[in-house]
């Protein structure tokens, strides 16, 4: 029996799969933010970045496939764990009080599912460009100067307050998800010590907050007219 089968068959092993794939997805969230923040450096910079990504098709698809595998594994392993956990308490308490569980921990399902919906919309919106007819080059009847005119696409996208609000709400819930996830990864992988159990949740919350500020800054800047 190989290691992967053993991991899948044990509860702790499944948690590792969730932890490792979560870490990889966190890496993407960080890298994606750094790419996105180039919005503040002007159209040329971010459009050149988009062109650069598209020019390296092979590594791009390798990364994409890796991300999809991580994303699917993260969800499938979590669902399997949730099923086990539900089965472990078939009869609910009539009255159950939570003593010290954090809101981020208790809302993992809600935040995770919202982020899932958001990812589907976000891909259809900006990657596949299915939801907005303006996101085409001018020759095809759209408003983009070139296929890599990401700058104007993002500005047009976020000028819609509904889309911006959903985006900010989603990255907010993603941050909540990560503030639990980042500190949990260390516990699940057995890296936590008595001392780190004190500062780790605080560090995780800070990282999550910075991610939220970074991501939310772009729609906020568009809505406020700072970016146009």
């Amino acid at each position: 029996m190989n290691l992967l089968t053993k991991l899948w068959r044990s509860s702790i092993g499944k948690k590792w799969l969730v932890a490792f794939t979560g870490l990889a997805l966190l890496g993407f969230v960080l890298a994606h933010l750094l790419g996105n923040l180039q919005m503040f450096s002007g159209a040329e910079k971010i459009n050149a970045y988009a062109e650069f990504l598209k020019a390296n098709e092979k590594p791009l698809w390798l990364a994409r496939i890796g991300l999809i595998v991580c994303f699917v594994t993260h969800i499938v392993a979590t669902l399997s764990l949730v099923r086990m956990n539900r089965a472990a308490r078939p009869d609910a308490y009539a009255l159950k009080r939570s003593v010290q569980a954090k809101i981020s921990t208790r809302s993992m399902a809600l935040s995770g599912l919202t982020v899932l919906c958001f990812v589907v919309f976000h891909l259809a919106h900006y990657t596949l460009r299915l939801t907005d007819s303006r996101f085409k080059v001018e020759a095809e009847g759209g408003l983009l100067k070139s296929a890599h005119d990401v700058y104007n696409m993002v500005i047009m996208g976020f000028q819609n307050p509904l889309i911006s609000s959903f985006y900010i709400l989603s990255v907010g819930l993603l941050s909540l998800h990560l503030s639990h996830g980042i500190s949990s990864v260390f516990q699940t992988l057995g890296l936590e010590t008595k001392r780190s159990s004190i500062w780790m949740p605080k560090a995780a919350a800070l990282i999550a907050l910075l991610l939220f500020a970074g991501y939310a800054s772009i729609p906020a800047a568009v809505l406020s007219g700072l970016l146009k």
Partner: protein
Amino acid sequence: MNLHLKVWRQKNPATKGALVSYEARNIPEDCSFLEMLDLVNEDLLSRGEEPIAFDHDCREGICGMCSLTINGIPHGPSETTTCQLYMRKFKDGQTIYIEPFRASAFPLLRDLAVNRSAFDRIQQAGGFISAHVGAAPDGNAILVPKTDADHAMEAAACIGCGACAAACPNASAMLFVGAKVTHLAALPQGQPERERRVLAMVRRMDAEGFGNCSNYLECEAVCPAEISTTVIGQLNRDYAHALAKESL
């Protein structure tokens, strides 16, 4: 003091249970929670009704036999066992919900009594050291640093009451298993069987139908022995090491 009780009554595992209301009258403030239930049972018996079944043994806070989920918290509002919980923690006229520890691995026997043998089976899977019996060894034949002894003792304080699994939204027993694994992993006597122990205990834990840790940290909040969730980190670490060694 007078109290309104809502107590889970269930004749046997096969029948359906329900919360039943009782009035507990003239309860002395200084009696323990279990003594309060004794008084309620006396009253029930005098009226020819079936008394409430609940688990208890030493009533000194060390055996781990008493259970009960009181107002939604295993062992109730103080960080002790139920037997060490006194009625002065409650207000006169208060409504108190009393339910069993709920987990599929703790099947209900009757009313508030559940079968916690699953913990015994996890222990039997590996929570011990294999040593030759005979005369007691010399006190300092095996040297143990004080910090290691303290660390082992903190984990060994677990009385196996099951409150951790009862409090966990996932009904996970990982605080219990973590405490047992950490206790022996901290001592030289535990080293020879360290890997076999953690693999066997975790597999038994899964087979018994407990959930797994999502880091709610509810377990350490209700643990009467104040076991910290760092033992779960140790369990994860030891299991990783043992599984990798077994598979690679």
